[in-house]
């Protein structure tokens, strides 16, 4: 897909080189905690960067905001507090782990540009509530932007490639960017909104092929209130289903996601769809593995897939590991950190493990 971009080929998003303040994601830390830990590890250990993991920041309240239980003014003030914490820790570059947060931070900064009186109000709010003052970050990136920026360095250190060892051909990778990454403000994303490069660039650099299928840009179906309330979940599952049906003819080996929510939904909805409609996607009814970019970077660099947490996805990734020629230990899969055997999870009825 790299060759498909036209308009954005001359545009490069500015991504700071070092000294970052890191803000975590509600969904990524809860569903893919190893991804956040691995991201920090890679930046520090593999790339030698300075990144600050501040215990004092909180949720941005984005899920609540897009589900309309948190007012705009409130979320702006919470985000302003994160900017204040960043300033107090001596940082100017912020890395955001969540795509929803990333979208909100960009929306807020754009709003402040258009409505300076709102910015003033938020400064007052924050001071009133916390006595803190803030600066707008000099450089704001999503954590995938950082992996994108260092994709070639990662490729140089890689132990494995996105190449099917049995056929010698590149793996077919579906990339899913997450709506809030660049649909609202294309210039804040790498490669704009239509043919974004952030994941495609990683896939290319690590040897895979990017699949462009008709519903590539479609939402995973989270829909905030549409997922959060049980009665509405048929909407969420329907959107993921639409995507899986559209990508099916291309025989994807894996789905790579930008947004933690999308990663979780596209993984879990395969199970739900298999239960509700008896349809299982992927080869041999095994499902299509759905990975975060941190997990994929970890695999490529040769980290233990079970330390990355792949066993705690609903769709299992052994077929993918075998294709990549990764030497993994099946015995280690369900062991504690200290090596004690844990029980086995239950197998879904319609997905082959």
């Amino acid at each position, binding site marked *: 897909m790299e060759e498909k971009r036209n308009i954005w080929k001359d545009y490069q998003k500015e991504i700071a080189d070092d000294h970052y303040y890191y803000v975590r994601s509600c969904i990524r830390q809860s569903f893919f905690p190893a991804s956040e830990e691995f991201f920090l590890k890679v930046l520090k250990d593999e790339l030698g960067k300075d990144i600050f993991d501040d215990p004092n920041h909180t949720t941005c309240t984005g899920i609540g905001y897009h589900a309309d239980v948190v007012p705009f003014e409130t979320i702006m003030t919470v985000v302003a507090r994160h900017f204040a914490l960043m300033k107090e820790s001596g940082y100017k570059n912020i890395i955001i782990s969540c795509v929803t947060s990333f979208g909100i931070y960009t929306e807020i900064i754009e709003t402040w540009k258009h409505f300076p009186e709102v910015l003033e109000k938020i400064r007052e709010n924050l001071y009133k509530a916390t006595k803190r003052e803030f600066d707008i970050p000099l450089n704001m990136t999503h954590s995938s932007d950082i992996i994108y920026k260092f994709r070639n360095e990662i490729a140089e250190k890689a132990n494995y490639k996105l190449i099917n060892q049995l056929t010698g051909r590149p793996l077919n990778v579906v990339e899913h960017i997450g709506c809030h990454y660049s649909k609202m403000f294309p210039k804040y994303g790498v490669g704009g909104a239509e043919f974004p490069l952030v994941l495609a660039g990683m896939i290319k650099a690590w040897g895979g092929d990017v699949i462009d299928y008709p519903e590539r840009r479609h939402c995973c179906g989270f829909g905030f209130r549409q997922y959060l309330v049980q009665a*509405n*979940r048929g909407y969420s*599952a*329907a959107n993921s289903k639409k995507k899986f049906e559209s990508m099916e003819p291309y025989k994807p080996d894996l789905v790579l996601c930008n947004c933690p929510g999308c990663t979780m939904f596209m993984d879990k909805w395969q199970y739900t*769809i298999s*239960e509700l409609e008896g349809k299982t996607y992927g080869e041999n009814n095994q499902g299509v593995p759905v990975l975060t970019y941190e997990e994929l970077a970890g695999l490529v660099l040769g980290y233990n897939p079970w330390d990355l947490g792949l066993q705690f996805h609903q769709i299992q990734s052994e077929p993918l590991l075998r294709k990549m020629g990764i030497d993994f230990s099946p015995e280690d899969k369900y062991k504690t950190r200290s090596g004690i055997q844990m029980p086995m999870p239950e197998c879904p009825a319609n997905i082959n493990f």
Partner: protein
Amino acid sequence: MTDFGFTINKPRVIDYDNTDKRVLKYLLAHEPSFNSCIFCGSCTATCSAGNFTDFNIRKLKIFIRRGLTEEIASEAEKCMLCGKCFLVCPRGVNNRNIILKVREALTKIESHEL
């Protein structure tokens, strides 16, 4: 099957590649003035049935174009055949005959003649 408390929503999108164009074909063969419709809505504005019910003859004609047989069947029965729509049509579309032909086509579909 696990009960999740919901079922997966069905799409509302008009999937043109997979709709049923039998009524459309029949109509174009039997009432060619249908081709001249520009969906301006004059017919709907004057429609006797549409004044008292949710019948919308302009929409019906689009359903025919798109091949939405279910929608066609439920709409076509609402017309009272007064013919005012033909009088007001700026393109001379014989709307009244369209209804008759659509009903004919639907009957034929039911009896597998189409």
